[in-house]
């Protein structure tokens, strides 16, 4: 694909966001804002136990209560085959998924959905839930990943045989799968090293922390068709999963995208939608379900907690000779953690000839893990970038110079097979080496730490349509829910392609009947893939505009060119015609053949990965153990920023979430496996006063495979954060923190009880 070489008029400008006014005035409609005449209130009864057999569920008293219109259990859902469908990392097993939507034989975590109730109001629904009698037999549980892997751990599935091992084990365990990647000769690589560091790390499971809880309205009609209004990261995926779980045809289910109050990966799956639809089918009324915050924490996916071991060898001149990582990830109650990504991303920023990564996907009595911003990569980066920091000190090399010396570039072999097709990493390091703050002095108890990260970025399936209006304006509709500013980006790319003003374009998010299949807003794929679909559709419309001008001028279409939003004769031999603007041609659409519009669907490839390098300054209070981040500088290769303001927002948002992951966020369970901090008061996400100025440094190396050079920017910014902060803490107080979060009690414990200075 040829990239535009002329200067851009709209690309790279900070336009006003089209969703701004509705959001600040409160008229934007989120998942919980939809209602229909006769709507019922849906609620979900959840397990109070971390692990229990469900011996029986008696709903008769609830169903008899006045005002209750329907009660559903797993009996109201069709059986699903036990099979992994789809690609390895994202393989879906609907036998598992239907059991996560409503438990069957067992409750596998506190908060596991047991039954749904639809009633005329919330009080009646709550009363009905109290009347449902569930006979549980409580079982021993396993919360921590290492506990779940222990020989005598209680089994979540008594017949689970680890996949990925030859020959297959004969004994069941909680290890769902083991996977492995190898490059080169590990023994030879470590033999070459002058310094080898091996270290264990643990990271806590953390929630995506979106402000808007899961919410939907569902209506099942008498003719077997249904409609859903919900906030999600992909309404086509909501349609696909809900239809499969309920045995509906895709064409019989329409899903309408609501505005979304944050997702970060956590809204790429379904929780309440199939239950609401099943309740509506039974009640004959629309049903709305909105999770409480407690339900969000106890029942929707966090990312995995982990334990890992990282070993890296280096020569005295700074050359890394070998690197090895073993990553053990909590999948939650059902298989499917992002451990494969962790294995693939762990050393992807470095040119290391000998690498070996092993991943364990482990079930435990927690909610099923869901995607979270570059899923898997930030976790392995914490261990890898911490060990690299120790090694840099051992060989007395600046940590950024050390990374630059070993940086991956075009042609570097990746542990998962191919050679790297795009660069950009070195430029992020150089940007920080040149940054004025990197060599600035520090005060007592202060330290500076640096780290890097890698993320694949996505392409894939997207659909877009564009229609011109008679007044010369355009409507661009895509299937990508707008989480990070995609409407503004799509409008900018459309305006640039048409050659007219940004405010002439209205970008919208269309429902599943109005635009071609579009995969989730996730994987940093939308500006790239949906952007290509939008540009393709706009180019098609431009060709139609040229054809209409040719018709008006009575010349061949090849004699008409499109420049700066106008049809012009291609040369003096075509004729002497005044240019026709888009508005001029649009005004004559009816007379020249009818409305002008175009659709495009793509399965976009050729996406370029994301690289980020960051440094931060921290101060540790030796009395309390509190870590204050004083400054954060985040460099990222952004390809070409379509809307630099939104790119800043992505970088700052990723860093802010990483600071929470690094310093405070964790799930705290009691000895019965019950979550003790299921609310924002006790689950401590960073607030504005916890955060420093986060300076984004946008490095632009355009991707030639996109018409405007786009690379995904949404995720890689979270990958280095935890290691950068940990490295800064080590430099501030001489304690190497190997467990997240680095909360005040842990830091204080390290200061008080570990007397030796640590690298």
């Amino acid at each position, binding site marked *: 694909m040829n990239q535009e070489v002329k200067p851009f008029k709209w690309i790279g400008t900070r336009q006003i966001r089209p969703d701004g006014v509705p959001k600040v005035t409160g008229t934007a409609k989120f998942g919980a804002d939809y209602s229909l005449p006769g709507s019922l209130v849906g609620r979900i009864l959840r397990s109070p136990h971390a692990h229990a057999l469900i011996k029986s569920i008696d709903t008769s008293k609830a169903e008899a209560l006045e005002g209750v219109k329907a009660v559903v259990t797993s009996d109201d859902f069709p059986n699903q085959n036990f099979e992994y469908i*789809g*690609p*390895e*990392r*994202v393989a879906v097993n609907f036998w598992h998924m239907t059991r996560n939507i409503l438990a069957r034989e067992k409750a596998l975590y506190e908060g596991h959905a047991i039954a749904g109730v639809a009633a005329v109001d919330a009080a009646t629904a709550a009363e009905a839930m109290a009347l449902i009698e569930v006979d549980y037999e409580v079982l021993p549980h396993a919360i921590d990943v290492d506990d779940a892997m222990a020989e005598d751990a209680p089994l979540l599935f008594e017949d689970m045989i680890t996949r*990925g091992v*030859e020959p297959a084990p004969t004994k069941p365990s909680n290890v769902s799968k083991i*996977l*492995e*990647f*190898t490059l080169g000769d590990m023994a030879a690589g470590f033999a070459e090293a002058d310094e080898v560091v091996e270290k264990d790390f643990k990271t806590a499971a953390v929630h*995506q922390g979106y402000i808007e809880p899961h919410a939907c309205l569902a209506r099942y009609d008498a003719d077997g068709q249904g409609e859903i209004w919900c906030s999600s990261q992909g309404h086509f995926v909501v349609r696909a999963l809900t239809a499969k779980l309920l045995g509906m045809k895709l064409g019989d289910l329409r899903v309408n995208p609501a505005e979304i109050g944050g997702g*970060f*990966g*956590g809204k*790429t799956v379904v929780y309440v939608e199939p239950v609401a639809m099943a309740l509506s089918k039974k009640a004959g009324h629309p049903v709305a379900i909105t999770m409480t915050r407690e339900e969000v924490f106890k029942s929707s996916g966090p990312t995995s907690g982990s334990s890992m071991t990282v070993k890296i060898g280096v020569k005295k001149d700074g050359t890394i000779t070998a690197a090895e990582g073993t990553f053990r990830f909590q999948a939650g109650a059902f298989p499917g953690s992002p451990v*494969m*990504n962790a294995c*693939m991303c762990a050393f992807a920023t470095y040119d290391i000839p000998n690498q070996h990564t092993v991943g364990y996907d482990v079930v435990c009595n927690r909610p099923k893990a869901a*995607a*979270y*911003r*570059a*899923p898997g990569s930030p976790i392995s980066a914490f261990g890898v970038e911490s060990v690299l920091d120790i090694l840099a000190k051992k060989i007395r090399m600046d940590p950024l110079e050390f990374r630059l010396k070993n940086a991956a570039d*075009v*042609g570097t072999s990746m542990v*998962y*097979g*191919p*050679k*790297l*097709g*795009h660069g950009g990493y070195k430029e992020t390091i150089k940007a920080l080496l040149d940054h004025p703050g990197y060599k600035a002095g520090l005060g007592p108890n202060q330290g500076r730490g640096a780290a890097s990260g890698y*993320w*694949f*970025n*996505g*392409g*894939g*399936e997207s659909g877009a349509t564009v229609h011109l209006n008679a007044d010369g304006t355009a409507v661009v509709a895509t299937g990508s829910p707008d989480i990070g500013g995609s409407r503004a980006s799509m409008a900018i790319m459309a305006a640039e392609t048409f050659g007219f003003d940004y405010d002439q374009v209205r970008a919208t998010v269309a429902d599943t009947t109005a635009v071609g299949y579009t995969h989730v807003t*996730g*994987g*940093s*794929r939308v500006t790239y893939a949906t952007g290509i679909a939008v540009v393709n559709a706009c180019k098609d419309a431009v060709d139609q505009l040229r054809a209409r001008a040719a018709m008006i001028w009575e010349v061949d279409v090849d004699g008409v060119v499109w420049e700066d939003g106008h049809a012009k004769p291609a040369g003096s031999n075509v004729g002497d015609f005044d240019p026709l603007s888009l508005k001029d041609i649009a005004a004559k659409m009816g007379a020249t053949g009818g409305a002008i519009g175009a659709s495009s669907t793509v*399965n*976009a*490839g*050729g*996406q370029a990965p994301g690289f980020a390098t960051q440094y931060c300054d921290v101060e540790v209070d030796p009395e309390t153990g509190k870590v204050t981040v004083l400054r954060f500088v985040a460099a990222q290769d952004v390809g070409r920023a379509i809307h630099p303001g939104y790119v800043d927002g992505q970088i700052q948002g990723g860093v802010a979430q990483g600071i929470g992951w690094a310093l405070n966020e964790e799930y705290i369970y009691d000895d019965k496996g019950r979550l003790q901090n299921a609310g924002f008061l006790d689950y401590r996400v960073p607030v504005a006063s916890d955060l420093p100025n986060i300076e984004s440094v946008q490095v632009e190396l355009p991707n030639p*495979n996109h018409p405007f050079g786009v690379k*995904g920017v*949404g*995720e890689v910014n979270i990958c280095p954060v935890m290691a950068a902060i940990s490295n800064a803490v080590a430099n501030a107080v001489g304690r190497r923190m190997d467990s997240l979060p680095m909360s005040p009690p842990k830091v204080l414990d390290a200061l008080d009880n570990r007397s030796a200075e640590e690298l």
Partner: protein
Amino acid sequence: MPTRVVFSSSLSDRYTGGENDLEIDATSMRGVIRALEERFPGIGEHLEEETSVAIDGEIHETAYFQPLKDGSEIFFIPKLEGG
């Protein structure tokens, strides 16, 4: 047109009896997959449905319709999903 196809160990263990580095004569990915299916029955559907493909370092979500150059290096890798 000769191309080099490399499989991960999980793919080669499952479909090719451990053979993981092959030369395939084809001008398109469709041709590569057809040739592989003839040699290793069952692998074609897996490659089309369940893998991404890296052609000379460029990752594509789908293997089916990508063009090739003489000597292209092709890796089939697990499909990826982000947040």
